[in-house]
């Protein structure tokens, strides 16, 4: 794959007020393709925002390089970098009209007024704000401001757009709608998006690839399905989606299936490939991987949460140990206190080496 953005060995240290050194970026390598939607995902303080600001030029690196389309950006100030940013607070210029906000990049680049007006109209059209140019940012709703910020960032036709948690200020419905619109816009523009969020659902919805970060390092890079189904470690497994983690010991291998047991005695079936009896591993099962059946892991429903399309159950295994999260589908009903059996398809089990 041809990569548009190449980050190699990015390092950045901060000194806390207490005098401790913290590595906000601890040797980050990342490639982003020319038409790719890449999301930087992680808890606050994981370095995702620092990485974004290093790309836009507002944060200098202590080490490493950033290249865009082969050109080294590392030493360039923000205004010399051919990429644009949608800021979390939108950062619209309150003393300018919407049209002047959107046309700002062209204005400072010295584009003649007539051409500027045409391109502003085009950009406003792309984000669904045609005819709003004469308004002031203060007269717009949150969602409209978001679109103005977007139009302003794409008007100069950058090859890379950076988005710093741009949806976090919107309410849930609008956020979901904007997620789809952003993805559509990115496809239509044919440019690369690097999107920062701490919202895993947002990351799963929009991304071609997700970069999961923790403590200044990349934990895993992969397509949403990879990240969700095959997390590389406990952190990724627990950060993305709801998860059941079972520290188990492999008991025996029978044909294509292996039987493993937790310390409390909960029995799981998993693919036999590569498994040896006596081996300590962690088995991962998503709540949707379990079904309520006649046999399987016996347990008692501790609580049932009805969420419209799904029923979320917390089941205490009869053998003991942590409660298992289960999403029951297809009209399956279970009440608090009911005795149930949880069945699962061995092939759905993802295994992490080690306990």
């Amino acid at each position: 794959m041809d990569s548009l953005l190449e980050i190699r060995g990015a390092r950045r240290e901060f000194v806390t007020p207490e005098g401790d050194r913290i590595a906000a970026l601890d040797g980050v390598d990342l490639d982003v393709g020319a038409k790719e939607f890449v999301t930087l995902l992680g808890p606050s303080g994981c370095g995702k925002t620092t990485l974004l600001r290093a790309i836009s030029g507002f944060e200098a690196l202590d080490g490493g390089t950033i290249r865009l389309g082969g050109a080294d950006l590392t030493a360039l100030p923000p205004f010399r970098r051919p990429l644009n940013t949608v800021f979390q607070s939108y950062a619209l210029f309150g003393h300018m009209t919407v049209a002047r906000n959107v046309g700002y990049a062209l204005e400072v680049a010295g584009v003649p007024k007539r051409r500027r007006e045409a391109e502003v109209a085009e950009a406003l059209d792309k984000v669904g704000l045609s005819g709003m140019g004469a308004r002031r940012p203060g007269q717009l709703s949150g969602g409209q401001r978001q679109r103005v910020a977007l139009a302003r960032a794409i008007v100069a036709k950058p090859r890379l757009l950076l988005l710093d948690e741009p949806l976090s200020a919107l309410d849930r419905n609008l956020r979901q709608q904007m997620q789809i619109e952003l993805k559509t816009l990115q496809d239509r523009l044919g440019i690369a998006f690097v999107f920062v969020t701490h919202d895993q659902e947002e990351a799963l919805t929009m991304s071609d690839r997700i970069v999961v970060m923790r403590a200044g390092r990349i934990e895993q890079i992969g397509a949403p399905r990879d990240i969700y189904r095959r997390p590389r470690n406990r952190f990724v497994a627990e950060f993305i989606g709801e998860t059941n983690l079972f520290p188990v010991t492999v008991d025996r291998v029978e044909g294509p299936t292996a039987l493993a047991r937790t310390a409390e005695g909960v029995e799981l079936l998993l693919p036999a490939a590569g498994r040896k009896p006596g081996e300590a591993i962690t088995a991962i099962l998503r709540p949707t991987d379990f079904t309520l059946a006649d046999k399987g892991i016996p347990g008692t429903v501790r609580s049932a949460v009805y969420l419209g399309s799904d029923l979320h159950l917390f089941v205490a295994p009869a053998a003991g140990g942590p409660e298992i999260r289960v999403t029951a589908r297809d009209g399956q009903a279970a009440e608090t206190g009911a005795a149930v059996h949880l069945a699962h398809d061995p092939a759905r089990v993802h295994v992490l080496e080690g306990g």
Partner: protein
Amino acid sequence: MAIRRQSAILGLLLAPATLFLGVFFLLPLLIIALFSFLTPGLYGGVEWSFYHWNYGRIFGWADGIMEVFEPVYLRILWRSLSFAALTVLVTLLLCYPVAFWVSRLPERSRLFFLFLITLPFFSSLIVRLYAWLLILKPTGFLNSALMGLGLIAQPLEILYTPTAVVLGMVYVMVPFMFLPLYAAVDNLDRAQVEASMDLGANRVQTFLKVVLPQTLPGIMGGAVIVFIPSVGNFIVPDILGGAKGLMIGNLVEQQFLSARNWPFGSALSMVIMSVVLTVLLVAVTRARKTGAGHA
């Protein structure tokens, strides 16, 4: 009923301020306006008959003789306005960069700096101006230092010149310029500055198109607060100014205290007031047009 009671309470609460301003501000102002059209009394005070040459004298026709035109008072008024404008300009240029620097300091040093800025208010203005007299006089601190360093051979003639007056006014007015400027600079949305640079504007463009318009309310506020007292200032020119540094405020003071021509002093005051009001109205209207819609 409820609204009526509310407005009654509001009226009661506003009464002291209204009464105070009415008795000690509006009434004296009306008296001055009235006096400015009366005949000067022989030993001060007024004679109760209409007399319009108070204004005629200000505009250049002294004592009712149309043939003799000498706009000496207009020249002094003009000088006062230019000194005040210069004071605004110098304090602005001094305070603007400092406001940025202070707003980026850590919390503690910032509070300490703001305390330093207000420190002059703790001592008398007259005493502080006499200190400047000691600094600026031919054998004063400044000249001794410069001569001691061998930079000049003769003492600089600063005291009792317009330079000394502007220097003194700048010194007095710096805190009044700094505080509104600092408030505006501290409120500046840094994300907008970043957005501007992200969109390709270099530092100069960003300053002119984003930072300056955003801090304009503070600049206007500081300019107004410095300009008004500077035009009518008479203490600074009195102590540091000499004959060439005479300002319109000194003239008013003289008319009331030594020349005992109350109507002429009143007319001068009215003229100063209308000129200052006009200047401000024009400035504020223009600023509002530039910064309209600024949230």
